[in-house]
């Protein structure tokens, strides 16, 4: 590999642009975004390691996708709802879900808010309107649309953020959800994180359109393709889409093109299907390094701060691991709970206890 192949593509913004787009406090907000990105990156590295050591059962990293999740944090409001796809866990943390709670979930222990019912990286965080996700692709899309309908009928200003990957644009519920949202002009922002891979299937085998955002046209809503490794571009696309939804003007579909910089999950081996130069191209568009470069260029981040942020993230993740790892697994009784409402009695589907 030559130096030029991995040279970072810089973010081309000056301070005046950021003041106009993000506001006078752009430096503080983007530095906050950078902290979350570093935390996400640290978490991915540590947890993949723990999975390899057999200390957690599974892990699905989001390395390379941080500009979208953290960009959505900058834009979303507390009253908004998040319907995650596969890799939005960092958005849950940034919106206020505690790292400890998330680590309890990753260890599937007795303090997991979802009581150890799901594989790691499938958190539920009702306190921040982060909806329980399944491993089924696309089903959350029509659910987000229904939630947006309900919010509008209650005259609430909540917006539904529906996240999904490029593969999900082939699913039944992508069509069903986009279609219904278009017909009803619902407050939904459809966020397609096109990391260019559905496990091993490249996006050009997923769809014949040049840009997935072109699909928006078929549902009567605006669509745009955005550089999903540029947090400023993500913000610039998401903020007006959310405001449009809040004003009652209907849904938007945004396609964030980015690079999956890790295997699909801890169970995947990309060397079977990715070209050798994939990671070089991905590293040139590393969203964390791109924001870091911008903040350095604009004098918002120096070497000392950078090291401090990395150290804080590392310490915080290590601390949370040490807390969660010693908590015992969920109680045997919990196996039979939450199948039906408590009023139906505990036990199997028959409610017979």
């Amino acid at each position, binding site marked *: 590999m030559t130096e030029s192949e991995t040279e970072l593509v810089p973010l081309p913004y000056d301070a005046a642009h950021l003041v106009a787009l993000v506001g006078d406090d752009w430096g503080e907000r983007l530095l906050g975004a950078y902290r979350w990105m570093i935390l996400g990156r640290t978490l991915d590295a540590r947890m993949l390691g723990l999975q390899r050591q057999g200390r957690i059962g599974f892990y699905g990293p989001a390395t390379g996708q941080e500009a979208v999740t953290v960009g959505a944090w900058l834009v979303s409001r507390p009253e908004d*709802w998040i*319907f995650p796809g596969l890799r939005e866990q960092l958005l849950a943390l940034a919106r206020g879900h505690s790292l400890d709670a998330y680590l309890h979930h990753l260890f599937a222990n007795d303090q*997991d*808010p*979802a*009581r150890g*019912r*799901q594989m790691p990286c*499938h958190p*539920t965080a*009702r306190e921040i309107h982060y*909806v*329980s996700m*399944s491993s*089924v692709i696309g*089903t959350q*899309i*029509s*659910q*987000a*649309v*229904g*939630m*947006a*309908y*309900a*919010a509008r*009928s*209650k005259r609430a200003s909540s917006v*539904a953020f529906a996240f999904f990957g490029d593969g999900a644009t082939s699913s*039944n*519920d992508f*069509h*069903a*959800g986009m*279609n*219904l949202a278009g*017909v009803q002009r619902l407050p939904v922002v459809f966020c397609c994180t096109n990391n260019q891979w559905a496990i091993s299937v490249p996006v050009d085998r997923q769809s014949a359109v040049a840009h997935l955002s072109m699909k928006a046209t078929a549902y009567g809503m605006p669509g745009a393709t955005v550089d999903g490794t540029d947090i400023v571009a993500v913000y610039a696309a998401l903020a007006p889409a959310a405001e449009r939804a809040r004003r009652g003007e209907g849904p938007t579909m945004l396609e964030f093109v980015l690079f999956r910089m890790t295997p699909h999950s801890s169970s995947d081996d990309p060397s079977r299907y990715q070209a050798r130069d994939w990671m070089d191209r991905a590293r040139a568009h590393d969203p964390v390094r791109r924001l870091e470069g911008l903040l350095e260029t604009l004098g918002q981040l120096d070497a000392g701060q950078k090291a401090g942020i990395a150290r804080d993230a590392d310490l915080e993740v290590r601390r949370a691991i040490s807390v969660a790892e010693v908590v015992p697994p969920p109680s045997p009784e919990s196996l039979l*709970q*939450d*199948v*039906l*409402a408590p*009023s*139906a*009695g505990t036990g*199997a*589907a*028959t*409610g*017979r206890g």
Partner: protein
Amino acid sequence: MTELTLVQAVNRGLFEAMRSDPDVLVLGEDVGVNGGVFRATEGLLKEFGEERVIDTPLSETGIVGAAIGMALYGLKPVAEIQFVDFIYPAFDQIVSELAKFRYRSGGQYPCHVVIRSPYGGGIKGGLYHSQSPEAYFAHTSGLKVIVPSNPADAKGLLLTAIHDEDPVLFLEPKRIYRAVTGEVPDGDHRVPFGLASTVREGSDVSVFAYGAMVHVAAQAVDALATEGIHAELIDLRSLVPLDEKALLASVEKTGRAVIVHEAPRFCGFGAELAAIIAEKALYSLKAPVVRVTGYDTPFPYALEHLYLPNMERVAHAIRKTAQAA
């Protein structure tokens, strides 16, 4: 009390729920302007408006997926699947999502959706307007499955469903939507889940049925009474939760059981009933359990009358069971 058909009782139940609770809304194909292809939702649009009576695009997964989202937010959606034969595009939403939300979120996201759907044969509807898929759903933990057989139960069980905390699949026997009438209590009439109803008392044989088959079985039971065979007919009404107590009490009394349903026999709901009897009341049995069911074929068109259990087939099974040593 008002004399109503079964489909009118469903309609009254929806009016009652929507008048008393602004969070109740109805969505599905043709449920608005057209009032539903069976008229179950007739008049709702006029009284409650487009926001609460939604004519949806033609997508069952979209209907159920959207209903789930509404329920997560706190509404009480009643989704109509026009014929249960068309529910399969929504199977993923029902089985993977609706039934599992409470469990997978550790109780954080209960998801209370009612799915109403006409089911069953007897209207010359062929393969795709006749099916009885209750076993697929009864097999799925986290769902309740309810099947009324008469107008009063239709209204009472539907109102219980709408005010329940769990997802409910409410299967309406369309063959008797208009063929059966009965007195229906006015107002907020509720029939609890998990309680079977004794339609005929008897001591010789227990007959278990639900939906339209209750009426076929009743004809058979009445005919056999003239032969001196006194069968007990139990309408299960609620498949999940099941009134296991009533099932076992009747078998313990009679020692003989006949199970009737329209769905195919293999892995049908009757298989579960027979297994429960075998596990918990075997020593009360004086004869093998007998099932009278549809055949293990797709639902036919021209030969529907041969496929569906009829009075003769049920009577034959009861007689055979009663006379077994």
